[in-house]
């Protein structure tokens, strides 16, 4: 009997260790493997017995699972619709291999991309990556090949590959799953990037919130050092600052400084870490590279739509029945993701809002469900796909609270370098609080001072407060140096636009103003 149970952090958090222990005790002869996670979160801990899945399993289910009588049986996992419908390129090994087992990695096509890269050399590597249409998966969607080319062409005594593993967007966990489940894939991708641009040193900057991923990476780097040599990789652990997911802030932090965002130019590609030419790519970008090298640019570019080529690991999270990781070609619609694949809300109540792209992404109502998952389509709809995280809310959510939270989050995490973000976020919270209180009846004591010539000398209606927030959001959007201050207006304004009733925008108030 071959039994597989995931040792991914999510499975552990759901009690996988206890189940594995109980199985080991009940079936001492079985071969128990701890594999990566298939990414079907609602079924974790998922126990696989000779290909058949049982989940979510508890210790008391173990006996029935072992004799095959358990009602948790979902049939053959590989044929299960959630899995069968995916196009897994980056996550091809998810659920199948043991994360740190080099033989498993090799047997599933590991190191083929690196071998190919060594054979064809830097120019051809960059050509292949450019030809694949791979764009940075961190949010901005910048073509990876062009970035590499810039670094390859830059002069410097030392160049670096920096993997940004500090994407702390709520609703995203693909980075974590990849680092825990397939660490060699990331290592291989970084080594290929190193070959392409002439860098022999790489850093992975990982979030301190992901201790399991850090442990796996460190172990994997040790075991595979001889394979990627002379390329060397070091894991650096962050210290709980969200803004360090911004590439220049991350570089500052790597240098041992405050994680304050740098103005660009100079581009990190030319003057990055310690002033040297540096490739900064996200985990998923680098992890897509081995496939591209091993199978050719065309194999990858054949997936996708428009200028969004290849596949995107999409993460279904929040109040959703079937949450988890769903890798598929660009072009699938938001509605398909939420309703067909995610099966609607877990609470069973209607969907009210879907936040796409993390804390800086817009809230979309169900009327946006026709939107295809594609960088351009979401930009056109005043949103962003960011890191591919989708967070579903049911009708109980209050959008004013969500808008306020966006401002609060920006205030907590602001690096402090620019005013619209550092102060604007705090002012934004205050205005939203006043909107919640129904506007302000009396004049503000400070605004009433004679020096404050232009300030209103009476209270403000909800409508006036709303136009104040709108104005503030404009300032933040255009006056901030980086995405934290610049994109916080997305969740705020989308909430106001689509759910004005949550902001007390009653009809009589509107009339008042006219």
């Amino acid at each position: 009997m071959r039994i597989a149970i995931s040792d991914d952090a999510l499975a552990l958090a759901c009690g996988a260790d206890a189940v594995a222990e109980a199985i080991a005790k009940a079936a001492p002869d079985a071969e128990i493997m701890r594999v990566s996670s298939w990414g079907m979160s609602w079924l974790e801990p998922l126990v696989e017995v000779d290909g058949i899945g049982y989940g979510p399993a508890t210790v008391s289910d173990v006996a029935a699972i072992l004799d095959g009588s358990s009602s948790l049986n979902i049939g053959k996992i590989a044929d299960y619709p959630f899995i069968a419908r995916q196009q897994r390129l980056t996550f091809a090994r998810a659920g199948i291999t043991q994360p740190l087992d080099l033989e498993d990695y090799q047997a599933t096509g590991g190191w083929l991309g690196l071998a190919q890269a060594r054979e064809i050399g830097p120019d051809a590597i960059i050509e292949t990556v450019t030809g694949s249409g791979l764009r940075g998966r961190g949010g901005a969607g910048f073509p990876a090949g062009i970035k590499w080319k810039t670094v390859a062409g830059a002069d410097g005594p030392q160049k670096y590959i920096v993997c940004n593993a500090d994407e702390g967007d709520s609703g995203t966990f693909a980075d974590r799953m990849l680092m825990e489940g397939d660490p060699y894939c990331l290592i291989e991708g970084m080594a290929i990037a190193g070959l392409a641009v002439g860098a022999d040193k790489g850093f992975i900057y990982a979030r301190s919130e992901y201790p399991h991923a850090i442990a796996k990476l460190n172990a994997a780097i040790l075991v595979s050092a001889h394979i990627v040599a002379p390329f060397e990789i070091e894991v650096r652990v962050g210290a709980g600052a969200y803004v360090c997911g911004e590439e220049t802030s991350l570089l500052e932090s790597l240098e041992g400084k405050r994680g304050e965002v740098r103005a660009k130019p100079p581009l990190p590609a030319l003057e990055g870490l310690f002033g040297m030419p540096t490739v900064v790519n996200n985990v998923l970008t680098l992890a897509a590279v081995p496939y591209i090298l091993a199978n050719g640019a065309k194999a990858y570019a054949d997936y996708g739509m428009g200028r969004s080529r290849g596949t995107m690991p999409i993460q279904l999270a929040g109040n959703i029945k079937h949450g988890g990781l769903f890798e598929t070609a660009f072009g699938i619609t938001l509605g398909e993701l939420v309703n067909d694949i995610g099966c609607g809300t877990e609470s069973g109540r209607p969907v009210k809002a879907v936040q796409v792209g993390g804390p800086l992404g817009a809230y979309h109502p169900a009327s946006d469900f026709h939107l295809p998952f594609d960088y351009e389509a979401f930009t056109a709809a005043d949103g962003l796909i960011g890191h591919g995280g989708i967070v579903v809310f049911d009708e109980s959510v209050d959008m004013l609270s969500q808008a306020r939270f966006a401002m609060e989050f920006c205030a907590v995490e602001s690096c402090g370098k620019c005013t619209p973000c550092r102060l604007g976020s705090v002012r934004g919270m205050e205005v939203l609080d006043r909107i919640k209180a129904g506007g302000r009846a009396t004049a503000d004591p400070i605004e009433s001072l004679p020096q404050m010539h232009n300030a209103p000398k009476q209270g403000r209606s909800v409508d006036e407060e709303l136009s104040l927030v709108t104005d503030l959001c404009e300032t933040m959007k255009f006056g901030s140096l980086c995405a934290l201050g610049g994109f916080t207006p997305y969740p705020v304004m989308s909430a106001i636009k689509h759910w004005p009733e949550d902001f007390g925008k009653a009809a009589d108030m509107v009339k008042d103003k006219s």
Partner: protein
Amino acid sequence: MDKTARLDEIVAAHAGRDGPLLPILNDIQAEFGCVDEAAKRHLAAALNLSRAEVHGVVSFYHDFKSVPSKLPVLKLCRAEACQARGGEALAADIAAAAKEKCEIEAVYCLGLCSVGPNAMIGQDVHARLDVQKLTRLIESL
């Protein structure tokens, strides 16, 4: 071993690294539960930085505390995906029960967003929390 000697050891362990301050601070925080004034001064001298430079870095990052917490720390995720699954109500309901037993800290996302509300204690993660489960967890601390 006294604290200064231990600090020197930590610094020495990272010698030869480029930009060693953050890894050093992470180690100090892990070992002493805080990066206090004495540690900052010591580091400044050891790394040839000003005390202000070190303080600037320490105060920037949420993970570094100025005093160690007296109780075990429970990090409860307060980010959107956990909010959508009832995290805020849970945080409110548990506050009273937790008072004597642990310090509840907010974290923004543990990467387990499809099975929230989630929490982390040390390096252990816990998912699908409700009031009963979280109360049991807190009592076991």
